[in-house]
Structure formats: C-alpha cells, structure tokens
C-alpha cells in the first residue's frame, strides 16, 4: 500500500515534470470503429480526445466504414474519447492510454441544439433609409407604437404628437408604405399596438411622388411603420373612476392588408384625454391657410403640462379612415371624423400692464365653457406611378362653437357669449406627367370659407368709446367673413444632364368679404353703432406669377434655386366709407437651398431666401372691432408690406454604428415692416390697438442643437436639445421709439432606459430663461424649470407599476414650485394579454397650476384649476 502511494506521488511528480518540460511521452495510437446500436458503421463522426480542462487535444473523423485512427500524446493512464455525430447522442468513452483498437457505439437521438436567435442590430442604415428595430427599443410597459417611437434616438415627439426627425417635422406617415391618414397620424400612432410592428423606418429626403424621384429634391423625411404581418389589430379600452364619476372608452379596430387598410375609432371620455388631437393634421401641406377667428372669450393660459392633468372635458369622437389601392396603382382614400366636445376652464388671471400713464393691474376670475361640434370629411383619389402622378383631394369641415364666459373683474361680473360657425370646403388637384421630354406639372387649389361670429358682452364695456362715457347693459359684436381663394399653376421640368430646369407660371386669387357691426343695448333699447364701428369690405388680391426653378444633383451636392416674380394687385372696396383702394406691387422672390454630403453619415444644408408678405385682410379693417371684452382694435386701412430675409445653415450627423444622432442649425430672419402697432390702454386696462405707418425692422436669430445617443448594452437612449433665440424689434414705448431686445434660452435633456427587465426609467428635464431689455433698461427676467421622472417596475411578468413624478418651478418676479405624483398599476392576464389598469392621478392633490408670462410690457400670472386627485380603473383588450 505504502509503496503504491509513493509510486503514485512519484508518477504524479514525473507527470508535472514531463508536461512542464518536454512532453517527451511516447505516442499511443488508438484506432477503432464508430458504430450505431445495430452495429452499422457511422461515417464522418467526430472523434476527439478530451483533456481534463474539457478542451480537445486531438480529433479526427470516421471513414465511410466507421473506422478512425487517433494519436494521443497525453501522459495520462486513461483517455476520454468523445464521439459525436449529428443525429446521435454524444458518447464519452474512457479507455486506457495505450495503443489499442476500440469500438465506440453511439445511440441515435434527435439532438436538441441550443438555439441562437438572430438579434437584428437596433438600427440599420441603407442609403437614405434608416431601420429601427422595434424589439430593441420597446419597453416592457410600452403598448402603442408611439411609446416606442419616443425612445428612438434621432426622433423627437412633441406634446401635440407631431414627430420630428433630426429636428424637422416628418412629411409623411406611412403604414406598410401606404399613407392612409394624410397627416392625421396621431390616430394610428397612439392606437397601433407596438407588438404588431416589426420596424420603424425613416426615409430621409423622401420624394413621395414617384415620377419626381431623382428629379426633384425633397428635404422632408418620411416615417414608415412596417408591420410584422398583414393583420387585423387594434385595441379596446374601457375605464371608470371617481371622483366625480369618470369614464374613458376607446375602441380602435384596424385592418392592414396589402392593398387595403382601415382604421376606425370610437372614443369617449371625461377623464382629461384630449381626443381632438387625433383629428389634427400634423404634416405641413400646401393647403391654403384658414383665416383665424377674430373674436374670443377672455381665456386662461393653458398649463404647459400634459393635458391629461388639467383638461376638464366631456368628449366624444368617431373616426373612420379607409384606403384602397387598386392593381393599377390608384389609391382611394376616405376619411370621416366627428367630434362633440365640452371643455371647461376655471381659474384666475392677474395681469400687470406698463403704460405711459403708469402701471395698470387687472385681476380676473374666469369660468369658461366651450361646446364644440365638428365634422370633417375628405376624399382623395391618387395615382402614383413612374409615368403619372394624379391626386385630387376634396374635403369639407364644419365646426360650431358656443362659448360662455363668466368673468368677474375686481368683483364686477361680466358675462361673455360667443357663437362661431365655420364652414370650409376645399379641393386640390395635382397632375404630373411626361410631355415629350419634359415633366408637366399642373396644380390647382380652390377653397371656400364662411364664418359668422358673434360676441355678446354684458354689461357693456368701453363706455367712453361706445356710449359717451355712460355705462350700458350689453354690447354685441357681429362679424361675417367669407372667402374664396384659388391657386393655380403650370410648370415644365426638363433635365439637361445633371441640371433640371423648371419654368412655371400661374395665378393666385383671393376674394375676401368682411362685414361687421356693433350693437349696444342701453336702457332696454338696442342701437346699431355708427360708421366708425362698422366694416363692409371687399378685398381682392390677384397674383399672377412666373418663376424659374433650377436643380442640380451630384453625388455630393444637391442645389435648388428658385427665382420667382409675382405681381400683386390689391383692390379694397370699403362700402362704409365708399372708398376704393388699389395697389399694384411687383415682388421678386429668390431662394436657394443646398445640401452637401460630406460622408455617408454627415451632411450640411443651407437655405437663403428673400420674400414679401402682405399680411392678411384682417389687417385692413378700419372700423372698430371688439375682439374681446377688454380689447378693441382697428387698423388704418393700409395694406401691410413686410420684406423678409431668411438665412439658415444646418448640419446633420448620424452614425448607425455608434448610434449617435446630431443636428445643429442656425438661422437669421430679418423682417422689414411698413406698419407699426401702437397700443392705447385706458385706466381700466382695456386695450385699443392701432396700426400706424412707420417703417421698422425686426431681427431674430436662432440657434438649435439636438443630440441623440443610444447605448445598446444598457438599452438607454439619451437626448439633449437646446436652443437660443434673440429678437430685436422696434416698438413705440411711452410715445418714444425704443429697441426691445428679447432673449430666450432653452435646454432640455431626456433619458430613457430599459436596463433590466425589472426596471425602466425615464427622466426629462427642461429649463428656459427669458430676458428682455427695453432701450438701455433691463426688463423682467423669468425662468422656468420642469423635471419629470417616470419609473416602471416589473416585479413579475404580469404586474407592472409605473410612478410619475413631476416638478414645475418658476423663477423671476414671481416664484412658484409645484409637485405632482401619479401612479399606475397594470396587471396583464390571459392568453389575449388583457390589461387591467388602476390609475391614480394627481396624488398630491394640487389644486391650481400657476403659469407666469412675461413680455416687455406685460406680466401675467395665470392660475388654472387642474384635475383633482382621481382614481380610474380600466381594461385594455388588444385584438
């Protein structure tokens, strides 16, 4: 025994010595056969000698007859031989370390390999297209695609739902390549389930018109939502809560086929969800602008926080959208929307005005209610092929607003009643086709608006102006606006090697009719006020124009030049004063856009332009108009003339490997106006706005920076954006001219992380400072900061807890600091993944949101009653 032990120790020592020194151990040859259980030879099996550390020291493959030969140089007594073959269980065989023949028998089996799933990189860039894999950015608690898009680097989502890519709004929102919603993309974005989406694509410089591809440059980026499969999806959500009694219902089914898509939605709530945003057009289209309403009930400043926190509403919405694409590339789109909504605002405004006569203070308690009914319909026929682009879209909107404003000012109650009805009809047609060697482009738009407005204020205001200084019972302002506008153009594009030229001609015509009258009631008798308080105007504006566009494209450069010559002919007939004003004015408007691609990842862009603006018809009324209970306005009847110089340079950088997105832009805008406004404020704070002829210059500069970075290993995305703007304008202050300088700085930082499957966090902070200076005097300074923190906790798969904390602070001439807390618990159950949600909002039960607005001459502190502490329980069923 003892000898044996000694021998072993010696042999072990020898072994160590031999391995360490020269490995001069005699080679042994092990040969044999690999067979299956039935004795059949297994060819091509892998036979290997395994060392103690589990690595392979020698290996071979069996011949067609199953035989193999292995040489072992290992200095051990026994060897471990491993034989493996696809379709068999791996066999471990221990044999003596000597030259010998062995039989290795393997058992047949279906070997289960450890699968490795392909993880597509989170971002892929191909030429101008960027693919974001939804799986890489989706958080455990994310339900809709908008939740995911918010996290994507390079993309920013504004409060109203508008999506920005590298700081600029996107041009199109496609789903599987089809533009179903024509810009009203909130409906899809906020209801489409993230689980149904494979990837979000950004197409930079997307030219949606096929016939123009590589002929006409597009600066716009488009977004495409690529679904996992052709599917019917959507969700239904229903909830109820207290107190007062709350409901929140949203049923949104969707169908996406290759050539057919439908999104329908029925929504109703009084829980503060703003449904109107789902019908908002968020892409800028060439549609003519609607004249803005003139009359209003004295409003409260809406809080600059999520509307869910303050919107006191009762809203109902229905929407139906359909697109059908036929085999010959024709698309038919139908959109219908109906909205019935009641909104209330409660709070108070404290305003301090600096006037030549001293400081005026206005203290208002406000309770407003607005009932809105809106209906819109649109029908689009589009044919988009390589040979022809044809698009006709017809749409109509009708909106009825009834507002009641109960206001008490320094304890004096005032009642305001506003009625507005707006009808809007539009048709636009665009045809682009080849005509010989050139592209022919015809476009025609026609729009009709009609809007009667009535504002009744009781008791009467502006006593000096309307009733010789005596108080009176009520005043009523009636307005009627009607407008027909048409824009027509024809152009030819011809390509000469790398340059394409586009001469164009056309005309715009605007026929605007405007009537207004003021009625006062004093001692129970109504009086129509005289000519100074009436308007009856016909304003026509005809603009024939000719323009020449040039476009150059090379691998590195894209340059677009536009020279346009417009002849503006105005005719203003004032039937009250029986006067006729005619004016003709030529306008030469050149513009230049250039883009230079430095590398695949970086490019520079720049725009320069010079243009004219002639205001809108509402700037030529010469009779007094009571715009709100403490604001009366008249202009001097002159057509405004603004000259606008604009310059912008920008830089974009995106790196898909390091996932860094960066954009930087600086712009200068110089406005030369021929009119200057002068505000007269009486001792009660009622404002009288007059325009006077006086050339003045406004200069604004803006710098903007955006950085987005994604850290893949910790699934964290970081976004930083900031801007600074400087505006210098000339105003009349206390009868003297002075330069007013405003400076605004803003910086925002947001981070969202999904670093573990149990925890996710979002943090965003925002700070802004406003500084102003009048002549050489420092004006008021104010600053606001916002801090939001959201934490998601997923203790187990089915449970999710979300905590939101928000802090808002204002510094400056008034200070405030507010803290909000919200909690959401979600339990997911069943095969269908039904969510049960319990939501507690405003747990700290903050009563009012206080916002402070400063400008050079005014200071306003608004206190807005927000939604109290509330609990809502709801279900969400995806389908």
């Amino acid at each position: 025994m003892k000898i044996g032990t000694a021998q072993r120790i010696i042999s072990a020592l020898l072994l160590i010595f031999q391995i360490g020194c020269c490995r001069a151990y005699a080679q042994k040859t092990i040969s044999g056969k690999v067979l299956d259980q039935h004795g059949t030879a297994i060819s091509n099996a892998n036979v290997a000698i395994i060392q103690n550390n589990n690595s392979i020291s020698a290996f071979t493959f069996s011949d067609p007859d199953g035989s193999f030969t292995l040489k072992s140089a290992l200095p051990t007594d026994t060897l471990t031989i491993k034989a493996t073959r696809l379709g068999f269980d791996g066999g471990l065989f221990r044999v003596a370390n000597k030259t010998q023949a062995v039989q290795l028998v393997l058992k047949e089996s279906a070997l289960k390999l450890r699968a490795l799933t392909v993880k597509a990189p989170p971002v892929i860039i191909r030429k101008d297209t960027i693919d974001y894999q939804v799986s890489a950015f989706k958080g455990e608690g994310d339900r809709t695609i908008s939740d995911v898009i918010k996290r994507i680097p390079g993309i920013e989502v504004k409060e109203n739902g508008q999506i920005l890519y590298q700081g600029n709004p996107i041009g199109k929102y496609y789903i599987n390549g089809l533009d179903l919603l024509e810009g009203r993309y909130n409906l899809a974005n906020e209801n489409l389930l993230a689980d149904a989406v494979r990837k979000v694509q950004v197409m930079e410089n997307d030219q949606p018109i096929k016939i123009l591809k590589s002929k006409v440059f597009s600066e716009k980026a488009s977004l495409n939502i690529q679904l996992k499969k052709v599917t019917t999806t959507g969700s239904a959500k229903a909830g109820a809560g207290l107190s007062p009694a709350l409901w929140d219902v949203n049923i949104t089914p969707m169908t996406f086929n290759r050539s057919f898509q439908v999104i329908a939605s029925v929504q109703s709530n009084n829980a503060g969800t703003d449904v109107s945003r789902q019908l908002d057009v968020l892409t800028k289209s060439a549609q003519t602008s609607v004249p803005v309403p003139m009359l209003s009930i004295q409003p409260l400043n809406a809080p600059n926080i999520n509307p869910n926190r303050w919107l006191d509403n009762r809203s109902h919405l229905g929407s139906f959208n359909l697109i059908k694409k036929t085999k010959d590339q024709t698309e038919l789109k139908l959109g219908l929307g109906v909205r019935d909504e009641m909104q209330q605002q409660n709070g108070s405004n404290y305003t301090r005005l600096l006037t030549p006569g001293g400081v005026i203070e206005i203290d208002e308690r406000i309770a407003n209610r607005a009932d809105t009914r809106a209906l819109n319909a649109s029908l689009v026929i589009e044919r988009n092929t390589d040979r022809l682009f044809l698009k006709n879209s017809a749409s109509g909107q009708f909106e009825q607003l009834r507002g009641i404003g109960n206001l008490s000012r320094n304890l004096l109650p005032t009642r305001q009643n506003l009625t507005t009805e707006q009808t809007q009809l539009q048709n636009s047609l665009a045809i682009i086709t080849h005509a010989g060697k050139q592209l022919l482009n015809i476009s025609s738009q026609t729009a009709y608006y009609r809007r009667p407005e009535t504002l009744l204020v009781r008791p009467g205001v502006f006593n000096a102006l309307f009733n010789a200084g005596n108080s009176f019972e009520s005043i009523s302002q009636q307005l009627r606006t009607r407008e027909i506008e048409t824009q027509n153009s024809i152009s030819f594009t011809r390509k000469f090697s790398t340059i394409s030229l586009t001469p164009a001609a056309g005309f715009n015509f605007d026929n605007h009719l405007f009537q207004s009258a003021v009625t006062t009631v004093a001692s129970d008798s109504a009086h129509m006020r005289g000519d100074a308080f009436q308007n009856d105007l016909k304003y026509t504006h005809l603009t024939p124009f000719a323009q020449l566009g040039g476009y150059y494209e090379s691998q590195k450069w894209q340059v677009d030049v536009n020279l346009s010559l417009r002849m503006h002919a105005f005719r203003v007939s004032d039937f009250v004063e029986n006067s006729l004003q005619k004016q003709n004015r030529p306008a030469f408007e050149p513009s230049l856009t250039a883009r230079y691609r430095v590398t695949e990842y970086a490019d520079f862009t720049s725009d320069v332009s010079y243009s004219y603006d002639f205001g809108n018809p509402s700037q030529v009324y010469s009779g007094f108009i009571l715009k709100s209970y403490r604001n009366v306005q008249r202009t001097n009847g002159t057509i405004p003339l603004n000259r606008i110089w604009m310059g912008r340079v920008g830089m974009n950088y995106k790196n898909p490997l390091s996932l860094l997105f960066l954009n930087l832009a600086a712009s200068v805008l110089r406005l030369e106006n021929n009119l200057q406004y002068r505000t007269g404020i009486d001792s009660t704070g009622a404002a009288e706005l007059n325009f006077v002829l006086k050339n003045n210059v406004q200069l604004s500069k803006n710098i903007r920076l955006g950085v987005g970075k994604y850290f893949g290993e910790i699934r964290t995305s970081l976004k930083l954006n900031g801007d600074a703007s400087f505006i210098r304008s000339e105003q009349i202050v206390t009868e003297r001219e002075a330069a007013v300088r405003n400076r605004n700085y803003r910086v925002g930082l947001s981070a969202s992380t999904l670093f573990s499957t149990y925890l996710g966090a979002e943090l965003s902070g925002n700070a802004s400072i406003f500084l102003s200076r009048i002549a050489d005097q420092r004006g008021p300074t104010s600053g606001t900061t916002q801090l939001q923190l959201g934490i998601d906790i997923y203790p187990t798969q089915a449970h999710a807890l979300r905590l939101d904390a928000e802090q808002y602070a204002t510094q400056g001439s008034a200070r405030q600091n507010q803290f909000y807390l919200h909690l959401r618990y979600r339990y997911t159950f069943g095969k269908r993944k039904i969510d049960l949600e319990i939501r507690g909002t405003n747990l700290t039960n903050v009563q009012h949101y206080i916002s402070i607005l400063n400008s050079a001459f005014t200071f306003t502190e608004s206190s807005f009653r927000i939604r109290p502490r509330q609990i809502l329980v709801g279900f969400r069923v995806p389908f």
Partner: protein
Amino acid sequence: MLRFACAALIMLVSRFALGQIKGSSPVSYDITCSYQLTFFPDSSSAVSKTESFLLFINQEQSIFKSRNRYLNDSAILATERSRNRQDLMSFLQAHRTDFQFNIVKHGCNAVRTTDQIYHDYFSYPETPGHLQWVLAQDTATIAGYRAQRATTEFGGRKWEAWFTEAVPVSEGPYKFCGLPGLIIRVTDSKEQYDFVLNGLTQSRRELTGQVPKSAQTEKSTFFKKQLEYRANPVGIAEQSGVVFTSGRSEIVQRVQQKNKSENNPIEFFH
C-alpha cells in the same frame, strides 16, 4: 441616358443572371445558421461593410451563401415563368450582395464553390485537406456557446477560428470546416474579414434550386478568368454581345473606380 447607363452598370457589376436556376429536386436541411460578416472591401479605407450569410446543414452536406443571394435565388425561382419581371428586378436591386458564391460541402474534403463571372457560372473544388488546423487550448464563450480556438492558413491570410462542440457538425462559414464542432467565429489576422455566428435554428427546411448549373473548372482557372474579367469587364460584356450605345466611357470609368475600391478580396490565389 444616365439612367440607362446606371441600369447597365447595375447589370454589369451585380451580375444577376436570371433564369439560371432550373428546378432541381429539393434538399432538406436540419440546421440553419446565420453569420454576420464585417469586412473592408478597400484595404486603404477605414470604411467597413457588413453582410449576412446563411449556412444550411444536414447529415450529408451543407450550403453556404449570402443571405441576399439566397433571397434572390428564392425570388427568381418563385417568379420563374411569371410575367412580373418588373417586381423581380426591383426585388433584386433591393437585395444586392457583394458575394455571389454558393459553397457546398460534402464533408470537409469535398468543398465545391460555384461562383459567377459576368453572366457565366463556374464551379471548382478545393484541394482536399485545404485547411490544416492547429488547435489551441484557450476557450471562451462566444455568442453564448463555449468555444475553443484553432488557427490555420488559407487563401493568403492567417485565420483564427473559434468552434464549439455543443454543435457537433464539422462546419463553418465560407470554406472553413474540419473542426470538431461548428465554427462560430472566424477572423483573419488583419481583422479585415470577420464572420460571427448570430443565429442558429434547428428545424427542417426544404430548399430547391440553390445551386445554379455551372461549368466545372479548376480553382486556378477560375481565379485567372476572374482576374481577366476584372481587368476589362466592359470588353468582356461587349464580347458577349452587349452594345453600349452611349455612356461607354462613363461606365468604364465607374467600373475602374469600383475595382480600385474593391482591392481586398477574402481570398488571394497565386
């Protein structure tokens, strides 16, 4: 004019030959691996490219090709006899690949490569024992598998491979094979070509017509012919009957530029 030139160029450099794959009997594979290749086509530039590859394995054989080549072959097969050529062309253009080859291995001593020169397919075998592996003892975990290192020299480069016993097939990307387990990563010493396994699924998959009909030749002949083509692609295209009515000089210039920037092939053969 320019458009035509571009189209002609695409035809020339991407070398899609339609209708080459005739229906052959389907082969079923048990394992599908995908690899991501990161490579530098221009050795003088720091710009890398990536491309995905697929490796299908069964008991007897394996086939290795770029993912886009696989998609193209499948699309061509699916649209054979169909009228919709327009869609196919746009599909092919959207799935371009820098690697046209198919590599079929019947064990590591029977490796046959089918590759394209202009519109013609050639196939050639590797010399048996083309890879002499030296096993190292270091181990590491790569893509979740325990792997062991091995080195070899091949095609004018020194290669370092990591293989795993956990997948008992003597297979790997490109022409690499012959190790006692699946190669999950293989990199050349200059780090100009780097294949990494990024997916593995074990399920039966039937593939048809993955290897086009080709002329059998020797490896040396193929490389010689390829060199000749690269030197004068326009001339060879013209020999085969293509007539450039305009823009010839432009195309010649572009092709030369492309050749200049693709100076770093995966394999050199002397």
